[in-house]
């Protein structure tokens, strides 16, 4: 059963413009000095594809002006792949035959030593849905361990309550990624067959709870391919604007995970090819000049190299999507998704440098580590 999206999120007013064929209006939107939903919708339209190069040039100039000639780097770290979730598209969903494992304290320390040896200073800790093997107390302990090794600790886990987020913030957690997967409730219900994740609005409100709990930043985004990508990108933009207005001190970043047609067994209902992906990233950059835009190793080497600094300002590196992937010699747990860019960190940094981009490992300091407050103090 679906209910209406709140006014601050609904993109209905602008959806018709995302079908526009008026190339004069599209060109004007790309060059606009003050782009809003209207301009974004025009740039998302299929007809805007013919202006892809112009959009890329604009996105590049904006990225360079705001982020300089740098790319911030982070690494994902899988704590657990235990999951009872029913996500149709996921490699570790509850009904998949998967080798399940969860890191204990010693194993996590071993992972962190390996990650530290790669000079990484920002990680994202991942789990599946809320499970006895990987619950909030477990996460809290993991965060405290990881925070002893590196400066910036983030999570990409199940949604939780404000009080639980607070606990994690106090343990040293800085930010959370919470992808809505899709803002369209019909495919959302179809994709999430059972479990807590079926509650669309509980997930939608989770970034608010995370920030109210004291985290400093949230990453949002959708899994492109599940629904009409223009609808999802417009919603993502509106969600970001809402968060920026209501939590004016919070960092808000946007990621662009995509179901790759050629990878894995899952067929996307609304496939997004790499030209479309690039178009959406450029459009978002033009409309949100100051927002970190993130690209993971799901994408191929070629696509990542091309988008680095052209809209994208932050990238994952050296990623392993298995539990114990960094420190252990054998990788016998099942991975969440297949990695396309398998370069190691020195190789990736060399590519960045050859493009005149400085890889930045440390861009935050643990001295700032304490829960944030968004209300007046």
């Amino acid at each position, binding site marked *: 059963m679906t209910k209406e999206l709140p006014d601050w999120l609904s993109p209905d007013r602008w959806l018709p413009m995302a079908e526009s064929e008026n190339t004069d209006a599209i060109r004007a939107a790309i060059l606009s000095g003050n782009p809003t939903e209207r301009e974004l919708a025009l740039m998302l339209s299929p007809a805007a594809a013919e202006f892809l190069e112009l959009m890329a040039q604009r996105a590049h100039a904006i990225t*360079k*002006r*705001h*982020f*300089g*000639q*740098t790319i911030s780097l982070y690494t994902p770290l899988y704590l657990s792949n235990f999951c009872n979730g029913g996500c149709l598209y996921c490699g570790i969903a509850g009904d998949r035959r998967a080798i399940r494992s969860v890191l204990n304290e010693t194993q996590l320390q071993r992972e962190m030593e390996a990650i*530290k040896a790669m*000079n990484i*200073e920002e990680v994202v800790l991942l789990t599946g849905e809320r499970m006895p093997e990987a619950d909030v107390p477990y996460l809290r302990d993991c965060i405290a361990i990881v925070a002893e090794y590196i*400066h910036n600790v983030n999570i990409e886990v199940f949604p939780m309550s404000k009080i639980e987020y607070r606990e994690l913030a106090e343990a040293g957690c800085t930010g959370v990624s919470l992808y809505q997967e899709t803002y369209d409730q019909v495919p959302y219900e179809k994709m999430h067959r059972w479990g807590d994740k079926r509650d669309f609005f509980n997930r939608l409100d989770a970034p608010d709870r995370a920030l109210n709990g004291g985290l*400093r*930043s949230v990453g949002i985004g959708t899994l492109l391919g599940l629904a009409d990508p223009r609808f999802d990108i417009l919603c993502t933009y509106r969600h970001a604007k809402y968060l*920026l207005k209501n939590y*004016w*001190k*919070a*960092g*808000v970043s946007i990621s662009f995970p995509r179901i790759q047609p050629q990878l894995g067994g899952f067929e996307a209902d609304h496939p997004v090819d790499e030209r479309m992906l690039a178009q959406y990233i450029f459009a978002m950059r033009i409309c949100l000049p*100051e*927002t970190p835009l993130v690209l993971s190793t799901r994408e191929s080497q070629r696509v990542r190299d091309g988008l680095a600094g052209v809209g994208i300002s932050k990238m994952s590196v050296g990623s392993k999507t298995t539990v114990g992937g960094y420190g252990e010699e054998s990788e016998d747990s099942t991975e969440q998704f297949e990695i396309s860019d398998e370069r190691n960190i020195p190789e990736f940094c060399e590519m960045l*440098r050859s493009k*005149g*981009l*400085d*890889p*930045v*490992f*440390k*861009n*935050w*300091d643990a*001295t*700032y580590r*304490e829960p*944030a407050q968004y209300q007046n*103090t």
Partner: protein
Amino acid sequence: MMNNILKVGDQELGSRLFLGTGKFSSTQAMIEAVKASGTELVTVALRRFNRNQAEDDLYGPLSELKNVRLMPNTSGAMNTKEAVRAAMLGRELSKSPFIKLEIHPNPHHLLPDAIETYEAAIELVKQGFLVLPYIPADPVLAKRLEDVGCAAVMPLGAAIGTGKGLSTANMIKIIIRDANVPVVVDAGLRAPSEAACAMEMGCDAVLVNSAIAAADNPAAMGAAFKTGVEAGRMAYNAGLMPTSEVAVPSSPLTSFLSTND
């Protein structure tokens, strides 16, 4: 000739161009730009100090430069408490008497928080720092910060990284007119001509980062800013011709009138 040494607290600087050190395409490019600019004071974010990886560390390579002093900055701090903590850590690591106090709680537009900055300035002055606060171009705030003992004030020309130049020129003129401490325009400058313009207005120095870091040739742009700042300062010292709303004729129309004496 007027003395061109800039005094900030008890410290003397031969160059009126300060440089930010982030956003460069490589540490090497940054170092070359610093050298070409002739700057004697550079600022480094504490968050870009990296003692674990030399390649990612901005502090180490800068600290090896002769004639360049380091000013840690508190970028990343959201409030007074965090800024004070960052400043203490920065001093411990760098031994610098300077601190660039910047508190911009909104990580997107990076505009400074006047209230937290004021509170932090009081504390840092007490702790013996030479405090150079990055502030909105607010003449009253500038005086309040001077009153609590800041060594200089650094009003913004425009938001960081926007390259919108001296958007706040009218307010900066008031700040300069009233100030007893050096006034440094920080943020917003895109072109050496804008730096020259700020110096002609009577700014004591300018701080530039994005305009140099994001240039195709940062070292050449650093040198260009050096020239711009020097030209502007020379013009200021030389005394600019006043502007006038009406033409001033060289053959006055009232010379036929008899004088009283």
